[in-house]
């Protein structure tokens, strides 16, 4: 009411400002929606709104976090340098003990020259990790180029093979780092979907019936804390027997099923909690209206427990991502986990740096997955209120 009354007046005084105001509000809405709410003061200061207050807000919401990251990098840099010196001294002392002063001096010079043959194997510094990241990216580009060349080379053969009904020839070379990331993301989504398909309906059933809830409570409490490694072995035992078809990707199936089984518990418990805590008033409304069980679930139980279910799904996807790395590492199925493991076994001079690149990428993707879930939740809530 008040804004309706005020708006024409503002239009008369400053017709131009109104346009920017709407854009600003829209922009803030979008920024908040995608989970980057910390940019809000930046937008506000951009249109010249309360510069002092918003500048302070920027310092608080953006500058401080950036500073903390810089501080972390500095600590990392000096920590790595310290470890380098410790390891170098050990090497020099070892040379001195084994072969005398001359060998120690030679070793010292060799280390100072940066020669790879005598480089101490320690925690890599931030700059080394950056270089490793660049190497991995270039490696990816090279592999991509190889793939394209390969598919051009076999295009003719493949066409004729297809005509004969034979299997196509596919590129079987080493996957790049980016390919590994893609495989991991695919696996985590498959596992997440499996967890959702299993846990949400089971949680609804358990939430509706106290008998079911108490019956399965012990089993769930026992299965929930089981380590992902054990789940992997269990799934391996079962999948090995069930799937004999060689055309199916067994390692993919094993890893996504294990991921699903490890991560579904949060959703299961949260869904059943949400469903069982439906407000008594709503239960009474359903009873007075004599809603059938299906309608009751669709119209009352699910909308009420939606926030609980989503909290569960958010935990599930972050757990899924966390256990996926461990499972890939163990199952030797392609992905970031096996990348890390292979680099560790490999022991090349930039292996440690590559492992740290993988660590940062794993962290960032985990963060993005969580943001994605938050966005999805907002999207569903918004579209629900708009559709109605």
């Amino acid at each position, binding site marked *: 009411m008040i804004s309706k009354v005020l708006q024409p007046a503002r239009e008369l005084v400053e017709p131009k400002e109104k346009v920017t105001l709407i854009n600003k509000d829209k922009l803030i809405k979008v920024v908040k929606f995608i989970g980057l709410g910390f940019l809000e003061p930046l937008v506000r200061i951009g249109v010249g709104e309360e510069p002092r207050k918003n500048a302070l807000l920027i310092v608080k919401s953006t500058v401080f976090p950036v500073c903390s990251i810089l501080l972390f990098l500095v600590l990392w840099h000096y920590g790595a340098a310290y470890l380098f010196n410790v390891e170098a001294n050990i090497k020099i002392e070892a040379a001195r003990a084994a072969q005398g002063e001359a060998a120690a001096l030679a070793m010292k010079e060799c280390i100072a020259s940066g020669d790879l043959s005598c480089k101490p194997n320690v925690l890599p510094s931030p700059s080394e990790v950056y270089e490793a990241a660049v190497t991995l990216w270039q490696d990816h580009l090279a592999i991509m180029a190889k793939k394209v060349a390969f598919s051009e080379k076999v295009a003719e053969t493949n066409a004729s093979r297809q005509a004969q009904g034979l299997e196509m020839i596919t590129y079987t070379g080493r996957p790049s780092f980016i390919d590994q990331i893609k495989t991991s993301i695919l696996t985590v989504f498959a596992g997440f979907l499996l967890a959702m398909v299993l846990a949400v309906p089971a949680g609804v059933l358990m939430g509706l019936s106290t008998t079911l809830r108490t019956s399965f409570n012990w089993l769930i409490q026992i299965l929930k804390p089981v380590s992902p490694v054990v789940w992997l072995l269990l799934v391996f035992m079962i999948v090995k027997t069930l799937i004999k078809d060689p055309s199916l990707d067994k390692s993919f199936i094993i890893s996504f099923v294990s991921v699903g089984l490890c991560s579904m518990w949060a959703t299961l418990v949260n869904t059943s909690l949400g469903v069982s805590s439906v407000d008594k*008033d*709503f239960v*009474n*409304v359903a009873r*007075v209206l*004599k809603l059938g069980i299906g309608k009751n679930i669709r119209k*009352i139980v699910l*909308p009420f427990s939606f926030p609980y279910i989503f909290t569960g799904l958010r935990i599930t996807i972050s757990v899924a991502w966390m256990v996926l790395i461990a499972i890939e590492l163990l199952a030797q199925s392609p992905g970031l986990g096996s990348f890390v493991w292979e680099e560790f076994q490999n022991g090349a001079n930039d292996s440690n740096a590559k492992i740290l690149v993988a660590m940062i990428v794993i962290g960032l993707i985990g963060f993005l997955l969580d943001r994605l879930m938050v966005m999805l939740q907002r999207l569903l809530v918004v579209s*629900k209120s708009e559709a*109605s």
Partner: protein
Amino acid sequence: MEQVTTKDFGQVNTWLLDQPTMLHCKDLTKVYPTPNGDYVVLESLQLEVRKSEFISIIGHSGCGKSTLLTMIAGLNVISGGKVMVDDDTVTESGPDRAVVFQSPSLLPWLTVLQNVMIGVNQVFPHATRAQKSDICHYYLDKVGLGSDTKKRAADLSQGMQQRVGIARAFALKPKVLLLDEPFGMLDSLTRGELQDVLLEVWHREKITAVMVTHDVDESIFLADRVIMMTSGPYAKIGDELVIPFERPRRRAEVLEHPEYYDYRGYLMNFLNH
């Protein structure tokens, strides 16, 4: 305060005499078993309400008046005796006994219209979409929400939500309308407004209504008869008072009625003893 007596007290509203009984509670008893023996909330309560009669039940908090209402609604297990609505014994809850709850109990994720529609869909499953929509819009208009049907229930004020609650109950075309302290959570201004709204919609339909309240003025203004319940345990009907004011009632006229304060005094006197 002196016990007030006037010639009207104890009379029956004569227009009700040729109405059939709509709601009948026979020897209605509610017992909660406890480790220290049974806790008797209501004992052998008798209540008869005629078709198109509006009664209100007053009593102190915890006297079991809400228990009585929920037993009629079928939301609370009946320990003894029976409730009959239109000669059918009540066994479970159902839309023939619509309830307006103390908290509006709207489904906050639905719109105003959807909240009413969900009930209409249950009661008139074979009606066309247009017919059902007409029913919803009719009652929403009557409670003054005709232009807010697309708003989300969660975005309305408490008072506006309770208007939807009233529309939802009437749209079920129930045999008995049960109101469980429907305005208890509202401020006094909104409460007055909603009493007017309720009375206006009710006057067109004359649905048998039972309202639980602890507001003496509200009970006189709305009801044809006020049932006074004694304090629990072993609560029963202590007294009843017929309010013969003409309908349709207007608040100002009721308040200025020469006998209004006699009735009010009578009820206050009962509650204070």
